């Protein structure tokens, strides 16, 4: 077919490890066309060793790190046993969460080899502008076949899978906003308490000549300091929990791992600082407006 540069039949299995919290995406591929098809970078091991040995695998960097595997390890993923012969990077894409094994090996391991079965066919085109027209042409050709095809760009294919998680993502986001509001109340409560306990101290500061703006600044700075420490601990804790837990969900044969990236850490930390500022502002205004006489009288 015009504009088709390579075709790679792929059998997809999403299997659980010993702990059911981690699912591993295994793709059975043809090693002879894989390299021309996918421009990943081998960072450890040998492609030749992978190609020569049927029961071997190339594993994405993200999956290797997540599972703590090393090259040469013999791995058992729910009755599918393979030896790791190489590690690849693919620019941080979801492909790095996969284990690639020989197609024939996976067909035999899962017993699906009888019909030379594949879950999907990857098609490489020579011109990305022709992507849609080639997809339409493929579906047209196979329209009368026993197995009809549904061809779409890989990005659209994955986007459809991710769309299925949209409701859950929006729901989680809503809960996140409510939790932020809760934190705001917690901070405001804490700072309010701190200022109320130090009415005498604030009144004395005012007597010594501290202007209301200075008192306001002191209280806000106290709130910011607390939120800085709390935010740092919380963001670091969340970063550690998410990244050390091997959590993820399977989407269209890919294992999409839950990963807290540095920008998520920084964003969470920034939100904590903002909440600290907002939560401390009202108590700070109240403290700055304290009348010296009534402040001293309340604790006399």
């Amino acid at each position, binding site marked *: 077919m015009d504009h088709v540069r390579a075709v790679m039949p792929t059998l997809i299995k999403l299997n659980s490890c010993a702990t059911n919290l981690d699912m591993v995406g295994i793709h059975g591929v043809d090693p002879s066309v894989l390299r021309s098809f996918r421009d990943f970078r081998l960072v450890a091991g040998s492609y030749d060793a992978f190609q020569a040995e049927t029961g071997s695998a190339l594993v994405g960097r993200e999956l290797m790190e997540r599972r703590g595997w090393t090259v040469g390890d013999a791995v058992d993923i729910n009755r599918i046993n393979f030896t790791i012969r190489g590690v690849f990077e693919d620019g941080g894409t979801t492909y790095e969460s996969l284990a690639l094994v020989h197609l024939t090996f996976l067909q035999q391991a899962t017993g699906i080899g009888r019909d030379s079965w594949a879950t999907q066919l990857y098609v490489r085109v020579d011109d990305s502008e022709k992507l849609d027209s080639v997809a339409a042409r493929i579906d047209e050709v196979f329209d009368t076949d*026993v*197995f009809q095809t549904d061809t779409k760009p890989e990005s659209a294919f994955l986007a*459809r899978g991710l769309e299925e998680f949209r*409701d859950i993502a929006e729901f989680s986001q809503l809960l996140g906003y409510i939790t932020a509001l809760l934190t705001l*109340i917690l901070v405001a409560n804490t700072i309010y308490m701190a200022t109320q306990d130090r009415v005498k101290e604030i009144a004395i500061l005012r007597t010594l000549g501290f202007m209301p703006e200075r008192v306001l600044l002191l209280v806000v700075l106290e709130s910011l300091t607390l939120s800085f420490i709390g935010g740092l601990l919380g963001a670091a804790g969340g970063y550690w929990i*998410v990244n050390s*837990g091997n959590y993820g969900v399977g989407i269209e044969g890919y294992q999409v791992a839950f990963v807290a990236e540095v920008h998520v850490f920084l964003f969470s930390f920034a939100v904590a600082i903002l909440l600290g500022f907002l939560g401390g502002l009202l108590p700070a205004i109240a403290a700055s407006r304290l009348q010296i006489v009534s402040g001293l009288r309340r604790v006399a």
Partner: protein
Amino acid sequence: MFFRLIPFRYNLRSLGRRRLRTMLTVVGISLVVFVCILMLSFSRGIKSSFSNTASSQNAIIVNANAFTDLTLSRVPKGVADNFAASANGIKEEHGQRLISPEVHLGSNIELSKDSGQFLFGVVRGVRPIAFRVHPQVGITKGREPAPGRKVIVGRLAATKLGIADDAIALGSTLYFEGDAWEVVGFFDAPGTAFESEIWCDVDDLIVSTKREEYSAISVVLESPEGFEDVDYFCKSRLNLELQAWKESVFYSRLAETLDPMIYLVGIMVVMVTGGGILAGMNTMYAAVLGRFQEFGILRLMGFSRLSILTGLCCESMLIAGTGGMLGAIFAEMIGGFSLRFPMGAFSLTVELEILLIGILQALFIGLAGGLLPGIRSIRMSQVDSIRAL
């Protein structure tokens, strides 16, 4: 020293002395309970959509090579007929064995012909007997699916498709697998994954998809022991390449894929509860710090340390309980909406049991938040209390 409770009215008035802080704490705890109830309902809903789909009396037979993957499973018609004719342990009703061959597939659905707007939905091809094999399913409007491409639509199918509930009406037409399908009815199956599906005649679906196999066969067992007969048949007839699963096991294996998400929800519930305890403690510490003189007077009046501690815990639990009730009421008010997930959709129903857990959680927050400040306050000796005057 005798134990005499401080009058409840006294505790109630104490709370009124610090209105702003009390209100902030009530709102904070109501948010804690609200979030936790929603999260618990979420994980309960998503899990039970699988467990409710499974019937303890049912078994599912799939291709031996597909494990629990229905999309990979292919059971040729001849094999299904062979199974239906020979397997033992299957329940019979009115002279008919309760065996339901089904095709299960994800399909791109259009609401109008050639619109190009594809919505991803789940379609199940069935025979009329499916309604006896899956008794959870009931027609709520219209009639059963029938040959001639007549389909019925589950209560949550619109959610699964990502469209408004009223976007599909009786008599309207859906377009999938190259054909037009008329909607002739609606069904529900409370709390199950079936509700997010579209059901049609299995033979129509086989013709439209140009396939020659079913995805799986669901059967009702004559007794729990009947599964061994079905399993034995599948294992002894290797040439048929069949594997039998108890439905409960099959769907719990499917549900495992969502465990990471539910685990993270659990962590969030614990953390948010921790935040609530801190809010409660904050308020009660503040309530206690300025009241040593008051406690001294109470001690002089003959109230024991335990009485004062009980009173403080009551104050704290009252604040938390009020917050808990508000959070529970709010969660109940907004609950009942539907969410979709990759394998279907489910209703986020706030059950009474979860509401009670939420309120108990609030009371626990109140108790934990009041206990430490309370203990601190009663540690002061009576002499110091008198001196504080």
